[in-house]
C-alpha cells in the first residue's frame, strides 16, 4: 500500500468515525420529539416563535418525504455521474500516457 492509498483510507475512516460517534453519543430531540431534524428547520422554528408569518409560500413543494428524497437522490446522482465520468477518463488517459513512455 502506498502513501496515497493510505491517505484516502485514513480520510474515509475519520469521516465514518465522526458520524458514528455523533450518532452514538449525542442525544437528540426531547422525549416524543423527532431527533436529527434539519438545522434549516430549527432556524425557521425560532423565527416562528417571534410571531413572524412567512409572506410567500413555495410555488411547488414535493408532495411527500419520498418524493423529496427522490429529488435529493437525483441531485447527488447528477453530481456522481459527472465526477465518475471525468475521474475515470483522466485516470485512464494518465495511465495510457505512462504506458506509452515506458514503451519508448
Amino acid at each position, binding site marked *: 500500500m*502506498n*502513501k*496515497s492509498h493510505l*491517505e*484516502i483510507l485514513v*480520510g474515509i475512516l*475519520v*469521516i465514518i468515525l*465522526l*458520524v458514528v460517534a*455523533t*450518532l452514538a453519543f*449525542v*442525544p*437528540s*430531540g426531547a422525549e416524543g420529539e423527532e*431527533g*436529527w*431534524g*434539519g*438545522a*434549516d428547520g*430549527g*432556524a*425557521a422554528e*425560532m*423565527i416562528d416563535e*417571534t410571531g*413572524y408569518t*412567512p*409572506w*410567500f*409560500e*413555495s*410555488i*411547488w*413543494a*414535493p408532495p411527500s418525504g419520498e418524493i*423529496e428524497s427522490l*429529488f*435529493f437522490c437525483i*441531485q*447527488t446522482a*447528477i*453530481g*456522481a*455521474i*459527472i*465526477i465518475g465520468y*471525468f*475521474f475515470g*477518463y*483522466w*485516470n485512464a488517459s*494518465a495511465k495510457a500516457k505512462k504506458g506509452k513512455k515506458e514503451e519508448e
Partner: protein
Amino acid sequence: MHIMEGYLPIGWCIFWAVLSAPFVIYGIWKMTKMIQEDRRVLPLMAVCGAFVFILSALKIPSVTGSCSHPTGTGLSAAFFGPFVTSVLGTIVLLFQALLLAHGGLTTLGANVFSMAIAGPFIAWLVFVGLRKTGKVGIGLAVFITAAVANLVTYTVTSLQLALVFPVEGSVLSAFIAFACIFAVTQIPLAIIEGIICGLVAKYIVRVKPEILKKLGIIQDEEIAKIQGEAV
C-alpha cells in the same frame, strides 16, 4: 443555511438579490471567457460543480443533535475563484428552491450571497494566502479552504437572519442564537467536507495536473512530489 421561502421581508429579499446579482453576472462572463480561451478547463469546472451538487445534498448528523449539509463550494473556490463559484452555487440553489422547496425563490438572493459568494470569496482569499507562503501543500490548503467556505457560509446566514429578527432589540444576541443552530452544527461537517475536498484535490493533481498548472494553482515540483507518493 437555506433561508426558507418567505422568511425574509421583501425589502431584504430585494437587498440581497441586488447585492448578489453583479457577482453572478460577472461570474457568467468570466466563465464563458475561460472556456473560450481554453476548452480544457470545462471538465474541471463540471467536476467542481458536481461537487457542489453532491455535497449540498448530503445531510449529515452533527454534535447539536440536528442534521445539516456541507456546501461543497470550497473546491471550486480554490481552483476557479469566487466568481465562477457563485454561478455554480446559484445553479444548485435554484435546483433546490424549485424542486425541493429547500430555500426559496424570494430568499434566493440571500442564500446565493451566503453560500455562493461570501463563503467562497473569503475561502479563496485564504487559499491564495496559504499558497503564497509556499509552505502549505495543495491537499492541506484545499482542506482549510473548504472548511472556511463552509463555516463562513453559515456564519453569514446567521447574520442575515439576526439582522431581520433581533432578539429583544439586539442583533448580537439574535446572531449568537442563530449561530448556535447553524455554525456550531457546522464545525464537524466543515472537517468532513475539508477531508473530502483535500483528497479529491490531490487525486486531480495525480491524474490531471495539466489543467491545475495552467490555472496557476500548482508548480511542476509539487506535482512530481504528489505523483511520486502514488508509486
